[in-house]
């Protein structure tokens, strides 16, 4: 082909590319129909307007705190793994929220809150699935809807990142990126619609319907059970189990990272739970902050003494897991229970994570390097059930067994079974498809070398760099 013709062909190709891109941009920038994209109509210069602005601020700051939990998960996981997989784990932890945010913007939010009618642009949907608000266009281009999106997207990202730790040190990065898209766009969002988007779980005819205040089930159990499915299909790390089936300890490389990561998560949880009121005018937020704090503290204290009485030593890495277990356990009930009940919930969460870690390693014989399944799946279920037991009727009309109501626990049990079956089932399908298409596990050679250099071309702490820039000869 003559050079000129080739150039022309290239030009045509470029023109087509640009016009497609411009078309997409135009489509997304279509003027709002009834939404309020600049807030001028939503804000009023009176007390009502002030209340709205305070609630906006509260919710957005909560969202930023929850976002920071990503840093906690990244630190906690990296510290709990071996040094040769640090870059890989940080990359997964970073990219799941980046890709997940785009997937949630495009698809997930619309599936989850379409039909909830909570804010403009979320009108269409039924009890099973929503279908409006995609890409935040049309009516959803509204200050309130988008404030709500900002709060929801960080929850979706949290659900996604829980899985990274369980499948660490052996899952291919590309498989993980595809997983991140599907979990935030579909698995998390459809279940989220059932419980938070006005779906069938929230309107069950028992008690007031299933209640999951900030997402023991919707966020943590979803992540935990998808992780369980992934871990089963992946198989254990080389060297985790001996020939007779007994598990080996594979210590992480940085206890400081584990502790700091847990601090970040604990801090972020003060956005996760209290800001889930979406309103600072709802003064229950102080109670929620305290139930959150006490449950985390109780979980940590229980595990601290449990390890001490078991081995004579205090195990800080496990104690950190205990704090997180307590936090996961209180998340569903944070608004509905009294402080004393939060302590009980936290202690039981601590027991549950000790039991869960033992059960996973010795009975199920699965390899979960950071304990994500015991922490998030088992305690997520416990958190849902705890609402049905400990809710004291002072908030939202939710009454549990302790005030003599038996209806709520039935709704909570249905919710718990649903979340486990849904997340585990869809997780098996997702990781199963990935396994038989692009593959999910790195080669044994890469696994032994560590994933950092084969998958990312660099180590986390590149020292002894003797030669200068690559000269093409070596």
């Amino acid at each position, binding site marked *: 082909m003559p050079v000129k013709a080739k150039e022309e062909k290239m030009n045509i190709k470029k023109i087509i590319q640009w016009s497609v891109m411009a078309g997409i941009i135009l489509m997304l920038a279509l003027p709002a129909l009834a939404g309020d994209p600049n807030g001028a109509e939503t804000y009023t210069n009176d007390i009502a307007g002030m209340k709205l602005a305070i609630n906006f601020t509260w919710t957005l700051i909560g969202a930023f705190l929850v976002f920071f939990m990503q840093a906690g998960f990244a630190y906690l996981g990296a510290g709990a793994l071996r040094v040769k997989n640090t870059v890989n784990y940080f990359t997964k932890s970073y990219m799941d929220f980046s890709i997940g945010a785009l997937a949630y913007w495009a698809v997930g939010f619309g599936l989850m809150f379409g039909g909830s009618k909570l804010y403009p642009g979320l009108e269409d949907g039924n009890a099973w699935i929503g279908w409006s608000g995609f890409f935040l266009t049309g009516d959803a281009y509204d200050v309130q809807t988008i404030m709500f999106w900002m709060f929801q997207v960080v929850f979706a990202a949290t659900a996604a990142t829980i899985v990274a730790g369980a499948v660490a040190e052996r899952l291919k990065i590309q498989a993980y990126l595809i997983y991140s898209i599907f979990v935030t766009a579909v698995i998390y969002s459809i279940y989220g619609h059932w419980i938070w988007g006005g779906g069938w779980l929230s309107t069950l005819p028992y008690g007031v319907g299933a209640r999951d205040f900030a997402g023991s089930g919707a966020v943590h159990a979803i992540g935990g059970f998808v992780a369980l499915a992934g871990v089963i299909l992946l198989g254990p790390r080389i*060297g985790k189990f001996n020939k007779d089936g007994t598990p080996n300890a594979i210590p992480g490389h940085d206890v400081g990272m584990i502790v700091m990561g847990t601090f970040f998560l604990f801090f972020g949880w003060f956005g996760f739970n209290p800001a889930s009121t979406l309103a600072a005018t709802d003064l229950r937020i102080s109670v929620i902050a305290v139930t959150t704090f006490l449950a985390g503290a109780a979980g940590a204290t229980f595990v601290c003494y449990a390890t001490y009485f078991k081995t004579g030593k205090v195990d800080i890495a496990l104690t950190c897991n205990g704090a997180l277990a307590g936090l996961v356990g209180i998340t569903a009930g944070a608004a509905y229970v009294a402080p004393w009940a939060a302590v009980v919930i936290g202690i039981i969460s601590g027991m549950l994570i000790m039991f869960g870690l033992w059960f996973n390693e010795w009975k199920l014989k699965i390899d979960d390097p950071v304990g994500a399944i015991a922490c998030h799946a088992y305690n997520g279920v416990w958190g849902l059930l705890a609402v049905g037991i400990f809710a004291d009727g002072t908030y939202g009309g939710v009454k549990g067994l302790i005030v003599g109501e038996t209806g709520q626990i039935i709704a909570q049990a249905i919710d718990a079974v649903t979340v486990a079956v849904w997340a585990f089932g869809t997780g098996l399908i997702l990781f199963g498809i990935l396994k038989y298409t692009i593959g999910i596990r790195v080669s044994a*050679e890469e696994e*032994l*070398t560590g994933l950092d*250099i084969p998958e*990312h*071309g*660099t*180590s986390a702490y*590149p020292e*002894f*760099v*003797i*030669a*200068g*820039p*690559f*000269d093409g000869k*070596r």
Partner: protein
Amino acid sequence: MIKVEAIIRPAKVEDVKNALDKAGYVSLTITEVKGRGQQKGIKQVWRGREYVVDILPKVKVELVVNDEKADEVTGIIQQSAYTGNFGDGKIFLTPVQKVVRIRTGESGADAL
């Protein structure tokens, strides 16, 4: 007595250790070392630019055995550290004049 000194791949430490252990050679010293041989360097990437690390991490395994055991030990290490690629490492054998066990003061073959 002979000191067997093997420079091997870090990923092969477990295999070598287990193979030696199986044959009854329990005592050994392991050091993380850096070095280079025919493998030269490996390419890594830092923010999109390639660079070469040409002093690579290796592990040095040292053990001292009686003369007649040296060949067996060498064979075990050679087989268990083998991948067939550049960078598998080398084994050096050197005579040892004297060995003293600190705890008891024993010397020679008794101290091994």
